[in-house]
């Protein structure tokens, strides 16, 4: 009986163990077969009860507090005014591809530098060191691959920052992985910063009045470009907007002026 096949696939699908082909096959059949559709629903309900086999465990009180902070904040009025509109929409897949290429080349360059470094050390016959270095290199490659994979992941969000009055032609593109709470940012057409100053990226949070420094970066005087990565982003609902100012070297804890170079809404 043909429906027997779908019984099996529906059971597998309910626990997330069906292959992509099986899932597609099942979905097509369910459109025309009410019996199997009801069965698939029953299997899903059954699977959703599996966690009840576990003993409940109360999370530490801090978790409740930070969740309530996160959502309580999102209904509060936001004081910051954002006077700009985003640039015309550009297919984010294009940016993801560009970012992947960028990362690939970046990783490649780092590998090249490390290989050279290894050769110098080999000449000095530090064999043990070399072995250690090779491990680091492999770890770096894995990290790079993981970053690339995360950038290409379906959950990755992109945010555009537009040039403001201090640098009207500047722009930036942020690839944000909300699940891992990290981001990689590319800056374009930025005026090079003086040697005693740094650009600083600010996260404007929905739940806090003061912008939060997310790190500093220098712009390459020739290409007028830069990039940076952020670890430990606030959860995505807390990010209202991002902005860039020019600050004393090394950055400061609150912006010293409202002369923005770049700004963009997180647009949730």
């Amino acid at each position, binding site marked *: 009986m043909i429906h027997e096949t779908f019984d099996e696939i529906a059971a*597998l699908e309910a626990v997330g163990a069906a292959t992509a082909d099986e899932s597609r096959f099942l979905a097509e059949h369910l459109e025309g077969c009410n019996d199997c559709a009801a069965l698939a629903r029953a299997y899903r309900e059954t699977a959703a009860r599996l966690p009840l086999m576990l003993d409940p465990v109360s999370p530490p009180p801090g978790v409740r507090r930070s969740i*309530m902070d996160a959502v309580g904040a999102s209904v509060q009025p936001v004081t910051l005014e954002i006077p700009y509109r985003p640039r015309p929409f550009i297919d984010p897949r294009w940016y993801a591809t560009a970012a992947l290429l960028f990362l690939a080349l970046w990783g490649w360059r780092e590998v090249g530098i490390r290989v050279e470094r290894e050769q110098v050390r080999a000449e000095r016959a530090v064999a043990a060191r070399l072995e250690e270095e090779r491990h680091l290199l492999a770890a770096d490659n894995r990290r790079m691959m993981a970053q690339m994979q995360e950038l290409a992941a379906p959950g990755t969000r992109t945010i555009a920052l537009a040039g403001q009055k201090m640098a009207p032609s500047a722009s930036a593109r942020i690839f944000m992985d909300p699940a891992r709470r990290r981001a990689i940012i590319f800056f374009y057409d930025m005026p090079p910063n003086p040697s005693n100053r740094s650009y600083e990226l600010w996260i404007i949070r929905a739940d806090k009045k003061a912008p939060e420094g997310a790190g500093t970066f220098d712009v390459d005087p020739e290409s007028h470009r830069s990039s940076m990565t952020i670890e430990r982003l606030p959860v995505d609902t807390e990010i209202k907007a991002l902005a860039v100012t020019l600050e004393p070297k090394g950055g400061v804890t609150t912006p010293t002026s409202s002369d923005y170079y770049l700004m963009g809404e997180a647009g949730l």
Partner: protein
Amino acid sequence: MSSSQTILLLPAVSDGDVAAFEQLYDRHAPILYALLLRMLASPEDAQEVLQEAFVKAWNDASRYDPSRGSELAWLISITRSRGIDRIRSRKVRGEREKDAARDNSIRSTAVDGMAAVESVVAGEEQRAVRAALAEIPEAQRQALELAYFDGLSQSEIAGKLGVPLGTIKTRMQLGMRKMRERLRESLDR
């Protein structure tokens, strides 16, 4: 899932009712946290993902459709899918090996009496689920758990257990069928 005994909270949550959201958390967080501990075997990760899941629930509350299952089932589905995302991104980073070492200590986490009292609704269902699982042969149950909690694919399960793929599929089907029948008898009637 039977939700008849319980007042629905998600409609209020979708209107921005923080108190309803707090109640939702107090009612269901313990079982969701247990689920994430089982899946991730790391309290830090479990707490982070729990937060992500509840923030998502807050944002998506208006999408909840009571005709398609209980609030707990909806929350479980959000939480598990976030947990699976975390497992996958960890796999990429090759951290699974580390988990194996932590596994046993986490799984034996003591029963939290208060939490058990808090989720009264889950109580009846929980007994039924455990009774149903107790009737399933160990091999079937193991395959289901590896898929549902550990996010393994059918071929990964076959590889891990050293059993042909066809056997794994059959085990999961039989296990699920038995569970479904038993739960229908004891809960849905």
